[in-house]
């Protein structure tokens, strides 16, 4: 095998569908400013924790799966930067929810009894209403609190994810707990 063929196979050529509208949309500052303003208001009025904030926001839902009810999207973002971390919306058929996390991971999830963990980055959900907190443990033994939030209404699910970029990609375990501190779900990883 030559380097030509190896590189050709590494990233094969393909017909690409341009999306110039998306470029122009991303270039517009308006949405970001609106979100930052919304967060500042939320922080001032509700005293939302400085690390992450949640605002109800009627969005155009670009990039969301078609099954999502785009008229009712919850946006979670970092108040300091206005960067969108997670967007969640109910499914149109009412069975579960749809999500989008940056960059470009999106999907729709039906209601189930399973607690799901995806990584990296660490992200998961459960329809078990008992879960209120969680921690991730690195191989070194150091633990990191997770962002855990229950979304009510038609979403009715609890989503958890890494808080910022401090959580390492290599983990020993993830534990989700109820309000009394009892373990509800535990994931252990072998390396």
């Amino acid at each position, binding site marked *: *095998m*030559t*380097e*030509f*063929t*190896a*590189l050709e*196979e*590494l*990233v*094969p*050529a*393909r*017909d*690409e569908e*341009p*999306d*110039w509208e*998306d*470029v*122009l*949309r*991303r*270039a517009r*500052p308006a949405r970001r400013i609106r979100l930052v303003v919304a967060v500042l208001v939320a922080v001032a009025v509700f005293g939302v924790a400085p690390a992450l904030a949640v605002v109800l926001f009627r969005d155009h839902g670009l990039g969301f799966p078609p099954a999502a009810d785009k008229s009712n999207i919850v946006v979670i973002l970092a108040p300091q930067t206005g960067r969108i971390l997670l967007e969640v919306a109910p499914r149109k058929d009412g069975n579960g929810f749809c999500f989008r996390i940056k*960059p*470009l*991971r999106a999907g729709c999830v039906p209601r189930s009894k399973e607690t799901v963990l995806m990584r*990296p*980055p660490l992200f998961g959900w459960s329809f078990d209403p008992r879960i209120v907190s969680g921690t991730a443990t690195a191989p070194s033994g150091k633990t990191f609190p997770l962002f855990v939030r229950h979304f009510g209404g038609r979403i009715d699910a609890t989503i958890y994810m890494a808080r910022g970029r401090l959580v390492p*990609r290599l983990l020993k375990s993830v534990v989700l707990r109820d309000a009394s501190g009892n373990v509800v779900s535990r994931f252990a990883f072998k390396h």
Partner: protein
Amino acid sequence: MLEELEAFYRTHLAELRRVATAIAGDRELGCDAVQEAFARAVRKRRSFRGEGTLEAWVWRIVVNAARDARRGQRAAVLEAPAENGHAPVVPLDLLSERQREIVFLHYYADLDYAAIADALEISPGTVGATLTAARRTLRDALEEVS
């Protein structure tokens, strides 16, 4: 200017996405990096002073966006699809970041030394020497494998 950017985007999208995918280490990250890079170029188009070519300026932004995407995600090493049960190996880890970028711009975007030099803000001589060394490394490694 906006029309020129759009024309460049539409004409060279396949090469842009291949290079960005290779640098970012992931197709989704690479595609997103291209979109972000052009959004950045659209926003900053008035800062383009015409000191080099528009193409070189855009390639620079795309390469930077793809680097950012890889560093932000620490993307897994790109693996080519398996063939006959064996995944072809491209020993990219033997190359430096600079060597990889030059290889990708040369092979996937078919840029010549001068264009790569403009895009990466280095001299054409450095591009030539780096590409020769990178090719030799890849060739030796691939010969060992086969």
